[in-house]
């Protein structure tokens, strides 16, 4: 199996409370992959850690066998729609063009090529006619498609999306699904954080079941079983959550300061 993302012994805490405990899995390339679990099970934390937005207490992640910094231009990220203020003064094109920003063009003007790529991305999500629309005037589904267009404009090989199906209308849902399949057919990898069990089986080829710890990861036929789902959705393990509260209350460090991680240099 060719690997897209590797997660090694990952422990991450939020406000010094562990939300992911020693999670370890590998994901294949060229598939639509769902990270599935109940609310508060650490799905978003998982994605943010892979994107380098949260620092793990222990463990590490790699993309295409390399640290994120070496492959950043091949990775695209779609944050949760509610994580930004849509009243920001910008139109749809402005936001999609942000997908063309890079470290090495930060001080340069937007080029014609950038505009062409952004226009193409808008076309793919059926929002071309909305290019000049203020983002505050968009519906929830349209906002989500703007975010996806921005990520398409990055022209990456792997796409990490945080709950793209939340609060969107049926038409947007269909449009996103079709887009995901097209991307897969082009050999891209798509990783999606998703909380809805009803649709997970239909959307994804591969599923990571998460509930603070890893419950299972693999092809959906193997993971989507009654026993495993019950384990993931049957509530958090009492011992883990008690221990988490204790660590948070006493501000106890999760690793001793001089603990050496078994991690390749790079």
């Amino acid at each position, binding site marked *: 199996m060719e690997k897209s993302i590797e997660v090694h012994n990952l422990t991450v805490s939020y406000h010094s409370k562990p939300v992911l405990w020693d999670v370890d899995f590998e994901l294949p390339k060229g598939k639509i992959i769902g990270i599935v679990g109940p609310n508060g099970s650490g799905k978003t934390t998982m994605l*943010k850690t892979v*994107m*380098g*937005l949260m620092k793990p207490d222990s463990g590490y992640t790699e993309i295409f066998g390399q640290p994120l*910094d070496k492959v*950043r*231009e091949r*990775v695209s*990220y779609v*944050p949760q729609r509610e*994580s*930004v*203020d849509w009243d*920001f*003064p*910008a*139109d749809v094109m*402005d*936001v999609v063009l*942000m997908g063309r*920003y*890079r*470290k090495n063009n*930060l*001080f340069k003007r937007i080029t014609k090529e950038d505009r062409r790529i952004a226009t193409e991305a808008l076309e793919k999500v059926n929002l071309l006619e909305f290019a000049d629309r*203020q983002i*505050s005037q968009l519906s929830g589904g349209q906002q989500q498609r703007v975010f996806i267009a*921005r990520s398409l404009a*990055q022209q990456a090989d792997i796409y990490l999306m945080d709950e793209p199906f939340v609060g969107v209308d049926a038409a947007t849902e269909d449009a996103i699904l079709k887009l995901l399949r097209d991307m897969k057919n082009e050999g891209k990898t798509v990783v999606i954080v998703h909380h809805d069990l009803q649709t997970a089986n239909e959307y994804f080829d591969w599923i990571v079941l998460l509930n603070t710890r890893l419950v299972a990861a693999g092809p959906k036929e193997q993971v989507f079983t009654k026993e495993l789902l019950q384990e993931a959705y049957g509530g958090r393990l009492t011992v883990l959550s008690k221990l988490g509260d204790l660590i948070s209350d006493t501000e106890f460090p999760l690793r001793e300061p001089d603990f050496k991680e078994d991690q390749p240099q790079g």
Partner: protein
Amino acid sequence: MFDPVFIKVLLGTLLLASSSAVVGAFSFLKGESLVGDAIAHALLPGVVLAFILGDGRHPGYLIIGALIAGLIAHYGIAFIEQRTKLKSDTAVSLVLSTFFGFGILLMSYVQRTGQGQQAGLERFLLGKAAAITMVDLYVFTGLALLLLLGVALFYKGFQLMTFNEDFAAAIGLPTGTIRFAFTVLTVLAVTVGIQTVGVVLMAALLITPSAAARSWTSCLPRMLLLAALFASFAALGGTFISAALPKMPTGPWIVLVLGFFGFTSLIFAPEKGWLARRRRAASNRNKTQRENLLKLLYGAEERAGKPIAMTAGAMVDAREQHYEGLTKTLRNLKKEFLVVERPDGFALTDLGRIEGRRVVRLHRLWELYLTERLGMAADHIHPQAETMEHVITPEIEALIVKELGNPEVDPHQSPIPYEED
């Protein structure tokens, strides 16, 4: 009046004010308006110490003192937010008051030694454009130009960091550097701005122009330009007034003029302004009343099975509406050829019948939708439909009709009147 010195002061004031406004715009958009205020207050000990330790009349010392104090304050706030359980507004207030108190303390010390009077230290508190020397003017005007250049250079970074910081980090932008650049620009903007309005009122110069500009436009570059214009006009106005009237401080006047722009914008701005919203409410009320009358006439026709007229008195009884309001609505409907006045009362025209039918149709469609899709009981749905019949657009109507499969009758078995084509 138009001697070269005056023109230089004027130009300087314009640049000082607009540069602060442009930098402050990003704090305003990020919802961190208070941070600018805190940094402004925190600069006071910096500039006074620079005065004590260095040469108080040289602007270079002031800038360095301000920069150091401002950066300490900024990173102090960030440190408190990260390392303690205090909320952000508390951290900001804590730093603001402590630094400002220390600054006042230092100032009174300098004042007592008698040096303060000559240097005009008090100008940092409330601003005094007239006290600016020619050297100051050149230095600060240069700085203001630098600020505008800085914002232009970092525009993409500031824009993305303000809108979506996580995304900026995810694509590998140097977020720490961008934030540092922004802090330095803010501190410099405050250093420049306090020359005209002083520490206490600096927040107004950073934030109010953007708050006013945002009411008029939803395009970031245009908003920055407009904020700069508002700030410039305010600076101009304030300078003129304080020059014309004896013993008037510049800062408070600039801030007052800015406040005037701010409040005027809140009232008069299109779409978002208070007046526009009043107008919208009135137009909604008006639409509701018109459509209700057309619906009433259509209902009467439906019951009679033929076109009939209703007197205004009968309508008042049916609608429980004031006679004056009703006749005014009727007059308007007449003017638009939706109703005609006949000896026996008011009747629908063909055009009016189409409108009346549309309202009745929407009412019944929505009642059906509520029972079918939301599982509501048939005796609970009427009040809801009374409102929605005025709101539903043709697109939503088409969606409802499609979803319900071209229904024939509503939950009360009344026919849903479609337009025949």
